[in-house]
């Protein structure tokens, strides 16, 4: 079926724009970048249509990549139902965001560079979801990390952007270390990295082994999918252009960890302890990030913490054994969170770069289309039935309740907080009086059309795309737990209460939020400063490493030790040379004397050795 065309098309777009884009006109850059992604999307549709119902995986082997001893790794792509879902999300949402970027990036420098990176990202992301063994997945995994780094630091002349890029890259190294260890363990135990082989053999392995593998894979997923304690890079990643935040840091790349853990579901179902840890990390992240989101004033930061929180939800789903619910939330979250970010981008674009919500307000009349579409995303994420977020969130919460009721209750509280902070952002941005000085202008149709399509997906995506039913067979899920109306009603009520609270605090009595914040100022400061997690990490990890590197590794080991040895050898050679220089008299007869002297010594030595002279 030529699966290789799916990732190769964006790669070609990257190569063309990356090499020649500087000389291209903007419309030619657009044609190459958007054309390649749209073609890729079309090829995905054609492939999936051709493959039918995909009840078993369709594998394509291209060549043997690594052959060493009994290690044999092929460059293989595979499509099964899980991959099909991911392919549609990545290329579909990716296409929309590419189109949106035409409008958003129109006035920015480095236009071709931006689209080249975006295409490269699509290539790696598609490699990640198509890979039929852990190593090909890992190639995509690292590649999207690289593109994330490049695009966070897109405004490389700004110090905070490059710092944020470095932070994302370095924090992800910790997770990748865990992932690598997991791959080593998998290879040692199963002598293969192919998904099919490993997952076929996994039920036979001991539970301790599978738990270790599962926990190490989880460490990798925690890095990429921004879970506690490795989430710190994602809020800073908002330094990149907003379409990047939408595509990479909301819809696709950060869900790679969820995809990878769902892909390894066979390992997790045989390692219940690892699953439990995932659920706990997920619920902790969900409530922790939602709390921070309550007090942020930067519109993108609100949605960034919201993303961390929603990824936590997906982890709850995975950890509760409801893999399909986790993937379901991945899909609907891709719709509404991409829309929230793109809408925020449209707001920021309208205000010529203003991101502080305290300088917004009353924008619903000035940029009505942005307002309407973002409202669709807001009701979707708040879990209002029958919109997209409602279905997936409740699938997760019901599954969590079956596993551990306390996780369900914390999830419900988080749902309330989610609704509150999203509507707080909406009210601060679009209602009340305008508090800024710019002259807002509605975005161009090229930005509004993707917003409209995503709004439709956010509203109807949950109802029309029944991901759990599609994936039930893939995950060997038993009969679905009976829909408990009470559980659903409670979580919906939590969302509605959150919305109502935001409405009261920010619209009915605008002063109430400030007076409330003043009455608990200590707590408010703690939340506003993100629980000082960055500062704690700086003090506990970063500063000791930097300080130790500077005072020990640099000044002692490098300057005194390594440089000392090198310079010592050099000056020793110079000193010896200075002495031996005097032999070089220029007088031929003195050289000859040395030759004779040497020969005599040689003869004497040979004589002594041979026993001639006693």
């Amino acid at each position, binding site marked *: 079926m030529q699966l290789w065309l799916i990732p190769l098309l964006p790669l070609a777009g990257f190569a063309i724009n990356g090499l020649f884009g500087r000389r291209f006109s903007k419309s030619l850059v657009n044609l190459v970048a958007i054309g390649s992604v749209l073609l890729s999307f079309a090829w995905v549709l054609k492939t999936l249509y051709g493959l039918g119902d995909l009840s078993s995986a369709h594998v394509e082997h291209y060549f043997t990549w690594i052959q060493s001893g009994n290690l044999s790794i092929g460059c293989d792509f595979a499509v099964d139902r899980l991959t099909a879902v991911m392919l549609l999300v990545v290329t579909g949402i990716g296409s929309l965001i590419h189109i949106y970027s035409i409008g958003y990036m129109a006035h920015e420098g480095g236009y071709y560079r931006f689209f080249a990176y975006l295409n490269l990202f699509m290539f790696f992301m598609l490699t990640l979801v198509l890979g039929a063994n852990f190593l090909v997945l890992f190639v995509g995994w690292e590649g999207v990390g690289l593109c994330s780094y490049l695009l966070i630091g897109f405004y490389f002349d700004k110090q905070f952007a490059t710092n944020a890029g470095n932070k994302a890259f370095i924090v992800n190294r910790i997770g990748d270390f865990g992932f690598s260890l997991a791959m080593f363990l998998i290879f040692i135990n199963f002598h293969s990295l192919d998904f099919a082989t490993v997952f076929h053999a996994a039920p036979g392995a001991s539970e301790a082994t599978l738990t270790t593998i599962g926990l190490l894979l989880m460490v990798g997923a925690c890095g990429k999918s921004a879970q506690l304690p490795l989430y710190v890079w994602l809020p800073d990643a908002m330094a990149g252009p907003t379409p990047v935040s939408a595509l990479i840091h909301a819809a696709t790349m950060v869900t790679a960890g969820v995809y990878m853990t769902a892909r390894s579901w066979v390992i997790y179902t045989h390692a219940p302890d690892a699953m439990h840890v995932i659920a706990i990390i997920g619920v902790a992240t969900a409530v922790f990030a939602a709390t921070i989101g309550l007090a942020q004033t930067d519109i993108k930061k609100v949605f960034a913490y919201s993303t961390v929180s929603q990824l936590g939800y997906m982890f709850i789903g995975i950890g509760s054994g409801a893999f399909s619910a986790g993937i379901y939330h991945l899909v609907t979250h891709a719709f509404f969170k991409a829309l929230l970010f793109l809408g925020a981008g449209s707001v920021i674009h309208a205000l010529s770069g203003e991101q502080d919500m305290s300088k917004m307000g009353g924008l619903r009349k000035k940029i009505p289309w942005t307002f309407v579409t973002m409202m669709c995303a807001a009701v979707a994420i708040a879990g209002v039935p029958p919109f997209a977020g409602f279905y997936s969130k409740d699938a997760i919460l019901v599954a969590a309740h079956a596993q551990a009721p306390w996780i369900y209750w914390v999830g419900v509280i988080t749902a309330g907080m989610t609704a509150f902070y999203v509507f707080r952002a909406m009210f601060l941005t679009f209602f009340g009086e305008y508090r800024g000085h710019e002259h807002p202008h509605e975005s161009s149709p090229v930005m509004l059309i993707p917003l409209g399509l995503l709004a439709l997906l956010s509203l109807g995506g949950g109802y029309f795309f029944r991901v759990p039913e599609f994936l039930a067979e893939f995950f060997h899920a038993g009969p679905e737990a009976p829909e408990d109306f009470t559980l659903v009603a409670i979580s919906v009520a939590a969302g509605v209460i959150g919305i109502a609270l935001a409405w009261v605090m920010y619209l009915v009595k605008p002063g109430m939020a400030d007076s409330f914040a003043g009455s608990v100022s200590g707590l408010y400061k703690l939340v506003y400063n993100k629980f000082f997690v960055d500062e704690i990490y700086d003090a506990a990890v970063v500063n000791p490493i930097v300080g130790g590197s500077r005072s020990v590794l640099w000044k002692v080991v490098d300057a005194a030790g390594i440089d000392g040895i090198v310079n010592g050898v050099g000056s020793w050679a110079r000193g010896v040379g200075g002495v031996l*220089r*005097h032999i*070089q*008299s*220029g*007088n*031929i*007869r003195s050289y*000859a*004397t040395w030759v*004779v002297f040497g020969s005599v010594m040689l003869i004497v030595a040979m004589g002594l050795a041979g026993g001639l002279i006693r």
Partner: protein
Amino acid sequence: MLSQVPISWFLMLSAALFATGVAGFLFRRNIITVFMSIELMLNAVNLSFIAFSYQHKQVDGHLFAFFVMVVAATEAAVGLAIILTVFKNRQTLNIDDVDSMKN
């Protein structure tokens, strides 16, 4: 006839010639003389080659002698050319004056 002469005589003659060559090389100052001393050493070595070759009834020593002669001939050609150039540039044949490579 030769068989009556012991090999040690040849070797002693060879050693004497070689020592003369070394002494000439070390103590004479004229480049031409030094050059001739080198030829003398080469011929001393040739003599011992031939003597041993005869002693052991093997042809290898003869072959080596021819090699040495060839090398000596080429060396003479190159060496004399160098000596001519040195004299042209410096108007001297004193070997102690040619020490610009000092230190």
